[in-house]
C-alpha cells in the first residue's frame, strides 16, 4: 500500500460532507497499514478549506484548484483526478457513490489500470487485506470483494460511513498540483440546473422521513404526506413506482437507485418494501409501515406497523401529532 487518496469536492461554498465520510473510512483502512491519508480537493478557490480536511482526518491535502473546476464538469474533473493520482501514486482511491463519484470512479480506474469495487457499505481489514462489502441483487445479498493488486478504486455509499469527530488541533502538509486542463474538456457542460427539493429539510439530512409509494394512488397523496412532514419537521421521499409514475420528481427516489437516508424515523406509506427500496433506508433507526396488505414485505422489516388505508390513517395521525406536539 502506498497511501489512500479520497476525493473531496466543493459544494455550495464549502467542502461537501461526502469528503468527510470518505476520510472516516480511509482512516480505518489506512491505520492497520500505517499509511497516510490524502484528501484531493477539487475546486476553483480552495485554499480557505484545507484546514477542515486536516481536522477531519487528512494527513496530506492535494490542492488542485483550477478555474475549470469551479463547477462539476465530468471530463475536467476526471482529468484532474487522473493527474493527481499519477503524481501521488496512491494505492487506494476512495470516491463517494454520489452522482459525481459514480460517474468518475470507473473511468479513473480504467485510466489507472486499477481494479474497481463499487457501492461499498462497509470495510474491514482482515489478515492485512481490505475486505469491501457491497450489496448485490438489489440488496437481497451481500458481496465481499478483495483486491488482487493495487491501485484500487472504490466508491462508498453516501451515509454508510460517518465522518470522524473533528480534531481542531490537527494539521498537515499541503501539496499543490499543477493541472493541465485543456478547454476541450469543457465540451460536456451543464447549461441549466433545476432544484426540485421541497421546502424545509433536505431529505438526506432529515431526522424524520416519510416515504410514499404506489399505494398513494396519485400525486394528491403526496400532499398529505407533505403536511405530515412539515408538522414533524421532516422530509418526503418516494419509491420508484411513485417517481416513475411522475407523481413526484425522480430526485426524490429513495432506494438502491435513489437516495440513501438515515433518519431516526422512517414512515413508509403505501410502499410494499421491495429490497431495492429498503436498501435506501437501512440506516433508519425505526421504520413504521402503513399498508393495506398485512402480507406486504415491509412488515418484515418495520418495527411498528398499521395494516390499513393511509387515506384514513394519515389525516388522523396529523391531527393527533399536532395535539401532542402543541404545534
Amino acid at each position, binding site marked *: 500500500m502506498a497511501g489512500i487518496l479520497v476525493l473531496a469536492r466543493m459544494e455550495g461554498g464549502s467542502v461537501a460532507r461526502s469528503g468527510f465520510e470518505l476520510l472516516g473510512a480511509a482512516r480505518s483502512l489506512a491505520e492497520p497499514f500505517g499509511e497516510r491519508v490524502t484528501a484531493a480537493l477539487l475546486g476553483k478557490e480552495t485554499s480557505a478549506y484545507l484546514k477542515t480536511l486536516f481536522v477531519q482526518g487528512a494527513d496530506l491535502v492535494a490542492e488542485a484548484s483550477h478555474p475549470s473546476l469551479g463547477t462539476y464538469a465530468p471530463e475536467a474533473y476526471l482529468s484532474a483526478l487522473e493527474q493527481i493520482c499519477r503524481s501521488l501514486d496512491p494505492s487506494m482511491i476512495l470516491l463517494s457513490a454520489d452522482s459525481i463519484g459514480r460517474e468518475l470512479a470507473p473511468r479513473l480506474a480504467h485510466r489507472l489500470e486499477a481494479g474497481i469495487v463499487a457501492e461499498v457499505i462497509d470495510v474491514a481489514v482482515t489478515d492485512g487485506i481490505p475486505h469491501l462489502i457491497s450489496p448485490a*441483487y438489489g440488496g437481497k445479498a451481500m458481496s465481499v470483494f478483495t483486491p488482487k493488486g493495487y491501485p484500487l478504486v472504490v466508491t462508498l455509499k453516501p451515509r454508510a460511513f460517518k465522518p470522524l469527530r473533528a480534531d481542531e488541533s490537527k494539521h498537515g502538509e499541503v501539496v499543490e498540483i499543477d493541472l493541465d486542463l485543456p478547454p476541450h474538456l469543457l465540451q460536456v457542460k451543464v447549461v441549466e440546473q433545476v432544484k426540485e427539493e421541497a421546502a424545509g429539510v433536505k431529505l438526506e439530512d432529515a431526522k424524520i422521513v416519510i416515504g410514499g409509494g404506489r399505494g398513494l394512488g396519485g400525486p394528491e397523496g403526496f400532499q398529505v404526506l407533505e403536511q405530515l412532514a412539515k408538522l414533524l419537521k421532516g422530509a418526503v421521499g418516494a419509491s420508484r413506482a411513485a417517481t416513475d409514475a411522475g407523481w413526484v420528481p425522480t430526485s426524490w427516489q429513495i432506494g438502491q*437507485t435513489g437516495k440513501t437516508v438515515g433518519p431516526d424515523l422512517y414512515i413508509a406509506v403505501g410502499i410494499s418494501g421491495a429490497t431495492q427500496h429498503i436498501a435506501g433506508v437501512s440506516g433508519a433507526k425505526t421504520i413504521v409501515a402503513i399498508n393495506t396488505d398485512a402480507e406486504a414485505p415491509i412488515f418484515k422489516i418495520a418495527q411498528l406497523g398499521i395494516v390499513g388505508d393511509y387515506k384514513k390513517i394519515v389525516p388522523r395521525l396529523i391531527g*393527533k401529532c399536532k395535539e401532542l406536539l402543541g404545534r
Partner: protein
Amino acid sequence: MDIVVCIKQVLDPEIPASQFKIDPVSKRQVQADGQGLVISTYDEHALEVALKLKEQVGGRVTALTLGEPSATSALRKALSMGADEAALVSDQAFQDLDAKGVAHLLRAAIKKIGTVDLVLCGCESADWGHRTVGPLLAEELGIFCVTFATRIEPKGDRIILRKVVEDGYELIEAPLPLLVTITSDETNVPRYPKVKDIMLAARKPIPTWTAKDLSLDGAKIGKGSSKIELRQLYIPAREARCELIEGETPEEQAERLAFRLRELKLL
C-alpha cells in the same frame, strides 16, 4: 442517429426476498421456481429513450448483449419493441469476466457494428448494480460520458440530456459520439410490443459473435485478468419483529401510533 443500446439479461429482480436463493460456492444467484429471465430494468428504459430519439431524428437502433445463448430472448424483446438490429456476444471462453472484461467485449462488438453516434446503457444492472460497465465502456471507446440521464433531445450535431442529481436535475449539452447511462422517469417507461411486431421480431436473424469474430485484447478478458476477487456472497440476516398497532377504527389506530411514537421519543 445510430444508437447502440447495451442490454443485459437477468433473472427477474422483482421476486420477493423470501424466494431469493444463492449458491455460495459459485457465488451467484440460483434461479427460483417460476423466476423468469428479463431485460435488466434500466436497460429497457435505455431502449425506450433510444427508440424515442430514433422516431424524432431517424437512424438505427441496435440492441447488443453479452451473455449466454438464452439472452437471445432479451434481444427478441428489444427487436419487438422496435430495435432495428440485435447482436449477441457469447463464447464459452469468456469466463470470470469482471466489469472491465464486459466493457472490453462490448467495445469490440460496437466496433464491429460500425460508426455509432450514441451508446446507451442502463444506469445500473439489476443483479450487480455496480454502475461501472457504462463509464468503463466510454473509456474503452475513448468517448465522453454522462451518467444517470432520463431524457435526450437532439440539438444540431449535439444533444441535450437531463441528468438526475441529488437536489433536482441538470440539463447538459454534450457532443457526439457519447455514452449515456439511463435511469427511469415517467417519460421513458418501456413500451409494450405489439403482437405484429413480436411476430416480425421472431423471424429476424440475430448474429452471435464469438471471440474469433471480435478484435480482442486477451489480457483484458483472459482468466486471471480481473484485479478484484469476489470472496463471498451471502444473504444478510433480517430480524423481523413488527409491532402491529390495532384499533377499532383506522382513526384509533392512527392515534395509538402517534402515542406510541411519542412514547418512543420519536416525536
